[in-house]
């Protein structure tokens, strides 16, 4: 059963394209998807899930159920970086502990999207408000991280945290903004709007995801070389902590009576780590931290793990609990 799921997940064009991308780097093929094409795909994916999520919301409406989910999402986005930080402090200095915990407190939209298409391929679905949940989970970890920084790091004055900048970085970063905006657009224009946008942003979705995952594979592959530099502790962290986060998420989802689909997507959000928003923010506000640690971990360890194993694994667990 578990193995079937694994296979079922791997034998999807998107996931295989991801592996193809990794292989391209390992075999030194010079295959590349030059900028800004990756930006085109990621923008497309964000807009697509935003519009679709908003459309779903316009049908379901904003119920208490929805608010409950959103609140729990925020809660996890604050909780995860805190305990992640203390785990990391066992081995790392404050700066890297902050950067990495923030990375894992935030989320990866592509992991979420891939999980969604895995769910659909099983004929199940999730609530449009999960996209809102994802959006809300993107930023808090950055702020939590920097609070931890100010509490535990003693820096010379010239590098005080510039909170204004940080908060803008956190809550007005492009992906948060585009997701919020398209959610709203999808919500406002409802059925009619979606009908007009569906041919591009609905029908082509899986293909575009596959195309983008090819690039993700290349980018992840480029970092694989750095894994050895990361060290055993952080490699273990990059696999075990996401699984743990997912389990915490599943526990909460069960306790608060999420639907099966929502629970699954929620667990994936908890398990995923950011490789765009957070690294950018950390680079600016915690230059002392080493990007080739936190970027490598989220991109070359946690992301591939979730795409290939985590997604079916979390589903497997949830499938048993929700039956």
């Amino acid at each position, binding site marked *: 059963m578990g193995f079937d799921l694994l296979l079922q997940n791997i034998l999807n064009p998107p996931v295989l394209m991801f592996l193809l991308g990794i292989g391209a780097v390992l075999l030194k093929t010079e295959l590349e998807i030059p900028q800004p094409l990756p930006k085109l795909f990621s923008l497309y994916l964000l807009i697509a899930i935003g519009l679709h999520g908003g459309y779903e919301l316009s049908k379901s409406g904003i119920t208490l159920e929805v608010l409950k989910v959103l609140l729990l999402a925020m809660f996890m986005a604050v909780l995860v970086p805190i305990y992640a930080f203390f785990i990391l402090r066992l081995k790392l200095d404050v700066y890297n502990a902050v950067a990495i915990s923030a990375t894992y407190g935030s989320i990866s939209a592509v992991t979420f999207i891939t999980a969604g298409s895995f769910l659909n391929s099983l004929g199940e679905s999730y609530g449009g408000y999960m996209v809102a949940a994802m959006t809300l989970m993107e930023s808090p970890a950055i702020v939590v991280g920097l609070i931890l920084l100010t509490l535990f790091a003693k820096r010379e004055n010239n590098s005080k945290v510039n909170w204004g900048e940080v908060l803008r970085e956190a809550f007005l970063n492009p992906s948060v903004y585009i997701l919020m905006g398209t959610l709203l657009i999808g919500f406002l224009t409802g059925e009619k709007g979606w009908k007009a946008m569906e041919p591009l942003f609905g029908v082509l979705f899986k293909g575009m995801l596959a195309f983008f995952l090819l690039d993700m594979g290349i980018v992840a592959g*480029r970092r694989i070389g750095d894994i050895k530099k990361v060290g055993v502790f952080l490699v273990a962290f990059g696999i075990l902590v996401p699984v743990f986060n997912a389990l915490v998420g599943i526990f909460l989802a069960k306790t608060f009576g999420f639907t099966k689909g929502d629970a699954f997507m929620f667990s994936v959000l908890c398990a995923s780590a950011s490789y765009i928003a957070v690294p*950018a923010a950390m*680079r600016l506000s915690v230059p002392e931290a080493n*990007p080739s640690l936190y970027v490598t971990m989220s*991109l070359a360890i946690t992301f591939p793990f979730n795409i290939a194993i985590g997604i079916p694994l979390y589903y497997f667990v949830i499938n048993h609990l929700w039956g």
Partner: protein
Amino acid sequence: MKPMKKVEVVIDSVYLSRVLDVLERIGVSGYTVIRDALGKGERGIMAGDELTDVFKNSYVFTVCSEEMAHRIAEEVRPLLKKAGGICLISDVLWLTH
């Protein structure tokens, strides 16, 4: 043609705006930016990661008086300490139109 100083800075793109702020503050007559520059230095390879944009440099140069050039150098130094990168000063003749 007027003898001037050319100040070149290569720095992590994330910090470009900070460098430009410095130039504005010091009041250079202008500057030129090439946004995407790759490279390698103490902080390792900047291979222009398409996804995270974290590993990309920008290249800026400005032409100004020697005195300004040195003030720029002073103001940029802490930035380079923090974020890496380089700052060069050289002699040029500027065509005054």
